[in-house]
């Protein structure tokens, strides 16, 4: 069967991959649609759930922009972590529900990535109790950090502050991303509805405009469903 593909078809098919289109889309189309159909940023952290599996190995991906955006600011952050290494390790051991935690500097942000068991609020509360002084040292270097330090005296405000900087966790399935947006808008209908699935790319682009840093998917786990306490017990680590 002869192809009905003409030169203009070929040209247009290649268009989305061109720098020109990406430039126009980034600077004209995306701002236009963001004004026309504004989206709210989706909240960070794991979804609330009663199920056991959803409450172990939860992710926290904290991105905190430094006040001093230079090598000096980054060095201050690195020093704050290095000076408190013993306090961090002892604190994490005492919290007991953390699988792993690490600090990373990306650009002019100090980031804390961790995997923990249980409720997010309790996790931060435990941290304040065990390594509040470390948090104070780090958060003072971060934009708006002075509003919530010392964290021991601003517990609720500090928890909210951390939550607002915890990345939105894009679901594993594209359609669950739509469900998150619908839930944010109070739309919980299932069927029948009048959706337009072809708008999914635009919705994703606009969410990524509103929420520049996100975590992609729920991540891989080698032993999903097990808490740090269970792993330690089965490995006989004498915890």
């Amino acid at each position, binding site marked *: 069967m002869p192809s009905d593909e003409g030169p203009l078809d070929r040209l247009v*098919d290649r268009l989305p991959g061109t720098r020109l289109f990406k430039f126009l889309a980034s600077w004209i189309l995306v701002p236009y649609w963001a004004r026309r159909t504004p989206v709210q940023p989706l909240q960070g952290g794991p979804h609330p759930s009663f199920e056991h599996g959803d409450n172990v190995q939860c992710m926290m991906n904290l991105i905190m922009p430094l006040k001093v955006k230079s090598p000096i600011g980054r060095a201050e952050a690195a020093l704050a972590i290095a000076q408190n290494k013993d306090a961090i390790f002892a604190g994490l051991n005492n919290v007991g529900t953390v699988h792993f935690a690490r600090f990373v500097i990306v650009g002019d942000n100090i980031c804390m990535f961790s995997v923990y068991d249980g409720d997010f609020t309790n996790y931060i509360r435990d941290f304040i109790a065990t390594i509040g002084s470390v948090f104070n040292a780090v958060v003072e270097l971060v934009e708006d950090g002075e509003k919530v330090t010392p964290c021991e005296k601003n517990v609720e405000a500090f928890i909210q502050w951390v939550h607002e900087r915890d990345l939105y966790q894009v679901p594993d399935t594209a359609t669950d991303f739509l469900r998150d947006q619908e839930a944010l808008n109070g739309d919980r209908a299932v069927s029948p509805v009048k959706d337009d699935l072809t708008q999914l790319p635009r919705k994703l682009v606009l969410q990524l405009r509103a929420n520049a840093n996100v975590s992609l998917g729920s991540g891989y786990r080698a032993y999903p469903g097990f808490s740090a306490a269970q792993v330690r017990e089965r490995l006989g680590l004498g915890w």
Partner: protein
Amino acid sequence: MVDTSVAKQLVEAIIGNLPAPVPGKRPVHTIGVGVKGEFVASDVARTYCVAEHFNGQTIRLSARFSNGLGGLEQHDGWSDVRGMAVRFHLPDGTGSDLIATTLGEFFVRTVADFFEFAEVAKLEPYRRRHWLLKIADFLRLKVPPRNPYPNETQSVDAGALRYADRHRFSQLGIFQVGLIGAPESYARASYHAVHTFWVTAPDGVRRPVRFSWQPVAGVRNIGPADVSRDKYLFDELRDRLQRWPARFMLMMTIGEEGDALDDCTKPWPATRVRVAMGTLTLTEVPEDQEAAGERISFNPCRLAPGIEASDDPILEARLGAYEASREMRGGCPFKWRKDDANAK
């Protein structure tokens, strides 16, 4: 159980939407290849399930890999759901089947949903979208519909999208179908049984589970430039197995309270406990494909003691629909139980 008339209607609804039904053949997944192999359960499998093929001995098996499309036209390079049906041949002469596809979630919850889907997602003429309309899509930050595959004149895509726009439960499955692509090899795709089953452990504990096959060779699709390759999957598998066996790991995910046990449109979270139940090794593509793949009648509800079907209405409907389809095409009946005298 879904009564036989409904089961027949289901099969007829599928046949009625085919471009060219082929009497005596499977209405969908018509093109396929039968393979011989064996399965060895992992050391822990027997602690979760008492079914005989999980007790650790080597179990002979028959597998059939297939393209999802109905009809005799073979378009391996087209984006399509692929099937992997496995029959574990148990030592007492009975069998236990596990039917999986590359689709992670199904797109309807019930038989009524399916009939509505069949009504909406009819074959329609499929043409290249005009370039001006594509530009309009780009300006709206939308992705235009794909170009037709070589020689493709009809498709259910538009109807399926209309159905998905009305029913959110169907969106994940239909969205996945749209992106599924074509595997480089039948041995380089993951296959999911989509339904929930109940397995019984030696201590009597029953657990809701979902099964998936994961290829040891890794998952890999062909690129868009290879979409016109119509026939490569059978030869690739034959050549591959002549050089070296192909392996799959059987992964079993254990559901929790609150997970969708009877709804195959809903995925389970990735945080559920996952157990490696064993390794399947494919060894040979037999010459006699009639016996190795075409005459075998798989059924997702043919299960060894120790595994039970959930109350998923689609799984229940498949029990009857597969039997109705087998009768219509003259497929080989199979012993469901040890005392089943009507079959071999």
